[in-house]
């Protein structure tokens, strides 16, 4: 053997050695996840960092849920009540409403202290008073870049003027010290919208009666902040939340993890009694499962770790491994998890619990009533097109094929989880019946022809002008493309040549705001459980540019009923009866005009591990993290049980690589 060959052989043996080292080292490293035994630690994942922890600024879901850990609002939602009900948070009681529903006098709790923070004298959190509530509304109204101004716009007495003034004063001021000083001057201005009566009583004055006001006060834009903290931290307040909430921020590693720990200054709050008329509906667990927690001090968890995991596969695998406590189901995993609308045996063996609940999100087609062809101007013919198109949509098939069954046909505009929902009623244009749709068209004088499998309607006997419809679809995701295909197909069934266009979301919104589309495939996430929120989308006053009434529907009769309906409180049994009646009457009007074709309500599937305290999903309530708990010992035990590192695949793999490299180097040797 040459000396040179020895060199090469040394190199050759190096490779399998390195490989073996690599695999064995890595084999030891797996699964060393901190299990937090002995502490009650809740771990869940979000797909992105919170945009901001400033409650008055950000309103997206991730931010809201995180913000609600640190801050509290005057009101929150009852944990168990379905349909959802508002209960006092920082307020001592429900508001006292006077002057025909325009003045809300609210008593505050006296046991609320801010968390300890260097911004306070001696670093001790001080008591929250009416001044803080007044200050918070002013600060919110004065923020140029809040996403939540729509919740207050025009609703308070004098608040719009205050905002104009505030924006005028602070416009273009870039120096932070100066900005804060100007803000300070502003905050000293008296404001009609909210006034301090005494240290623990505030009074809101509204521009007009607004019975849904307490719902608005549950939103994080109305969180109570301390003036000292805002001035102490300036812009950095969004990274240093100082609130009265159940948790305080322990650590925020951007792109990785947000850690919350129990706030020792949190007011005394205990897990609520389970109501007598409790029913395990809409995502609630059986009564017994909540029983062990009743009377325990909130928050239940010592620590909440929010992992930022962008990739859905990674989140899912972490959930399966027990590193994350709860999870949704991605479309990739759906068939492996759910069979026949229930968990697969594999999942059940792992002790995973499935929860299904209704989300207050409606998907619909809004026809533009200002359009010449299909709008109000088109008269009976246009009406027929709108109705026929609604008949052509096989909604159940869409739900089954594209949503894995996670939806229910929208038989009303009001979601099933709302008190105003009526199960006996079906909106006439929510049912799939292409034959009826075609009949509507022929009755209205259209010429209907079957071309192959496709129906086509014409305005005239000579078949010159086709009946066409353009639908704008929001977003360019797969889901949006599926929807576009579904709409095109639906139109063909009844003879309407449909052109569904997918577009970027901002562009879609722009078109919708300006009212330049023929029809829109729109979605609406309800803000609070009151039919006013959804029916307002068809209210005549909102039928303006940038208004929420994107179909620009105007019907004085509908508006009159709406004005009556919106003043009724759904939590009052007597008023509810009246309200339901009015909502039905409004639907009857819509049946005649058909400005919308409803499609479906979203349904959510959520998975929990058995070591989680049973939760009560509620899409309106972001402050429910304080009710979360995890049995860390049980988690550790389960993770240990599930831990199996089969040696065989590893051995096979190393063996294969060793064999391959052995053969390879043997060849090399032979070549010598």
């Amino acid at each position, binding site marked *: 053997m040459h000396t040179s060959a020895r060199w090469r052989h040394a190199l050759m043996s190096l490779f399998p050695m390195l490989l073996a080292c690599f695999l064995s080292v890595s084999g030891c490293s797996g699964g060393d996840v901190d299990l937090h035994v002995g502490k009650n630690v809740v771990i869940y994942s979000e797909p992105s960092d919170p945009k901001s922890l400033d409650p008055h600024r950000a309103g997206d879901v991730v931010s809201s849920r995180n913000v609600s850990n640190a801050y509290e609002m005057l009101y929150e939602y009852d944990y168990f009540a379905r349909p959802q009900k508002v209960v006092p948070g920082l307020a001592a009681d429900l508001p006292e409403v006077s002057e025909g529903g325009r003045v809300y006098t609210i008593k505050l709790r006296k046991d609320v202290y801010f968390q300890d923070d260097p911004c306070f004298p001696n670093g001790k959190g001080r008591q929250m008073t009416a001044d803080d509530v007044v200050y918070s509304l002013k600060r919110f109204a004065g923020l140029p870049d809040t996403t939540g101004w729509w919740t207050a716009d025009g609703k308070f007495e004098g608040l719009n003027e205050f905002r104009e003034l505030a924006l005028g004063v602070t416009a273009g001021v870039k120096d932070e010290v100066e900005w804060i*000083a100007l803000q300070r001057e502003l905050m000293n201005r008296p404001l009609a919208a909210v006034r301090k009566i005494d240290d623990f009583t505030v009074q809101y004055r509204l521009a007009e009666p607004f019975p849904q006001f307490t719902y608005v006060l549950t939103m994080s834009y109305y969180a109570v902040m301390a003036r000292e903290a805002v001035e102490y931290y300036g812009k950095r307040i969004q990274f240093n939340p100082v609130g009265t909430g159940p948790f305080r921020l322990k650590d925020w590693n951007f792109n990785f993890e947000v850690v919350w720990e129990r706030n020792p200054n949190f007011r005394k709050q205990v897990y609520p009694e389970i109501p007598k008329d409790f029913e395990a509906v809409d995502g609630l667990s059986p009564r017994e499962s909540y029983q062990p927690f009743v009377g325990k001090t909130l928050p239940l968890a010592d620590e909440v770790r929010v992992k930022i995991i962008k990739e859905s596969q990674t989140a899912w695998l972490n959930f399966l491994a027990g590193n994350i406590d709860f999870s949704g189901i991605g479309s990739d995993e759906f068939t492996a998890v759910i069979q026949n609308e229930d968990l697969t045996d594999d999942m059940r063996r792992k002790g995973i619990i499935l929860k299904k609940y209704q989300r207050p999100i409606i998907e619909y087609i809004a026809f533009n009533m200002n359009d010449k062809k299909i709008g109000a101007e088109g008269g009976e013919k246009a009406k027929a097109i709108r109705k026929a198109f609604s008949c052509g949509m096989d909604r159940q098939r869409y739900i089954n094929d594209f949503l894995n069954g996670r939806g229910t046909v929208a038989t009303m505009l009001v979601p099933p989880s709302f008190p105003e929902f009526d199960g006996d009623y079906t909106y006439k244009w929510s049912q799939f019946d292409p034959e009826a749709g075609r009949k509507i068209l022929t009755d209205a004088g259209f010429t209907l022809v079957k071309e192959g499998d496709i129906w086509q309607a014409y305005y005239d006997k000579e078949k010159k002008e086709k009946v066409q419809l353009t639908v704008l679809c929001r977003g360019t995701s797969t889901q949006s493309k599926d929807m576009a295909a579904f709409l095109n197909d639906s139109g063909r069934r009844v003879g309407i040549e449909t052109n569904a266009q997918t577009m970027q979301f901002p562009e879609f919104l722009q078109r919708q705001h300006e009212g330049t589309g023929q029809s829109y495939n729109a979605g609406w996430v309800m803000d609070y459980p009151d039919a006013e929120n959804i029916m307002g989308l068809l209210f005549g006053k909102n039928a303006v540019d940038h208004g929420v009434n994107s179909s620009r529907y105007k019907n004085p009769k509908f508006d009159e009923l709406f004005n009556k309906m919106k003043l009724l409180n759904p939590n009052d049994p007597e008023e509810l009866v009246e309200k339901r009646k009015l909502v039905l009457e409004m639907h009857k009007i819509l049946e005649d005009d058909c400005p919308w074709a409803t499609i479906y309500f979203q349904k959510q599937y959520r998975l929990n591990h058995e070591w989680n305290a049973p939760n009560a999903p509620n899409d309106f309530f972001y402050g429910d993290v304080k009710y979360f708990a995890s049995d860390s010992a049980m988690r550790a035990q389960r993770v240990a049980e599930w831990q199996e590192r089969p040696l065989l695949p590893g051995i096979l793999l190393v063996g294969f690589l060793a064999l391959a490299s052995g053969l*390879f180097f043997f060849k090399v040797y032979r070549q010598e």
Partner: protein
Amino acid sequence: MWNYVIRRLLYAFPTLLGVLFLTFVIFFALNPPKKRAAQIIGGKGATELQIMQWLADNDFAELSESGHKKIDRRKQLTDEAATNGKTPIDVLKQLQSENIAIRSATGTSKDEIAAKAKAEGKSQLELLVAWHNAGLIDLTLAAAEKDTARKEAQKKKEEAEKAAKGEQPEKEGADKKDDAAAAEPAAKPADFTDPFAGTEIAWGEADFIAESTSDWEVLLASDYAEYNWGRLLWNYVTDLLTFNFGETNEKRPVTEVLGSGFWPSLKLMIPAFLIAEFFSLFFAMFAALYRGTKIDRTLVIASVLLMSISPVAMIMFLQKFFASDWQYFPISGYAEGFAAYQYLILPIFIYVVVSLGDRVRFNRILILDEVGQDYVRTARAKGVGQNTILFKHVLRNVLIPLITRWAVIIPNLYLGSLLLESFFGVPGLGDLTLKGVLNLDLNLVKTLVFIGTIIYILATLLADVLYAIVDPRVKLS
């Protein structure tokens, strides 16, 4: 050599400026600030005012010609008023009738305050406070209350007038009974004092000047020029050259964002790069040495196979099997210091496997090129040992194209890997560029481009210096 280095560094300047100019054109000309503002404010239906405010806050807008004209006209009027004995209110009314904006709630335009403050060498706030102390303006609560009282009284008066006309008084009248302050008489115009000739300053006057929101918005917005290209370019270049990177859309300083993701990305990418280069050179040497034999063919086929597998599929499969099903590795995660490597082994392994095919083929060709050279044949003929040829001569010459390649790859290592980082939960910079572009986050994107350019310039310079060190034939002059 030093001359060369210095000259290259001087060349770097125009290069950098050129890149800055090009990116400026791409960012601004293709997507003008106003359009971008509308896109960012987006969902909420941006109004003209919101857009102008965004532009002003982000230094894109300045006072327009019409804005300047308005200011001039105002000065003229106030000067006249001082001599004619007119009250400030008269001036304001005149301005209002001419549809001229006065852009500040203080009644003095912001620019005037700013100019005055600059002239006196004070901050705007100091100036305001000084005015307040001098009794020129009133910033106290009392003044604000007086102001409110005045307006309420005015409202009452209007209602009374309505009632006099025989109309039913509106409901609000009854609601305001408890506001005793409202009964106070209206403050007369003479109550207001003026700091400059005839300029009225009192909180709350904004409503007086522009009565409805829409008027106010239009007036405010029209005070700005859309943008001044020259100034925009100047700001763009000077900001970057002074390392003033600004804030992201989420209001985090760009430097902080880069700083927090820098190490995680490097921790992942540097070992991955080194290991991949080592193994690829190793295999490439065999393939080149035994060119045309089964060894060569096997290696080339294996390389092509590896190149054909999609990286995403590779990541998903290996993560699923190695980390989830067989639990040899953690699924995802990160830790401080060296402990991070328990989480990083699998992504590094995947990087090596995924990039091996491409690298082996590339390096094989480099080595083949050298092996075919005359000097190798001569050395062989002289009886020089195989290893001496390989390591002393061939590998050394191969280093030149390799350095060229590394000079391209290494500057990008700090940006991490988008796929690996998001699948393995590494808090690096991998998705930063994508996120920046998707969110229209100008400050972030321009900083990344700028830093990328600098690193690239330095890397190519370093590569040139290395050429000279590796290859004595190369003279840097």
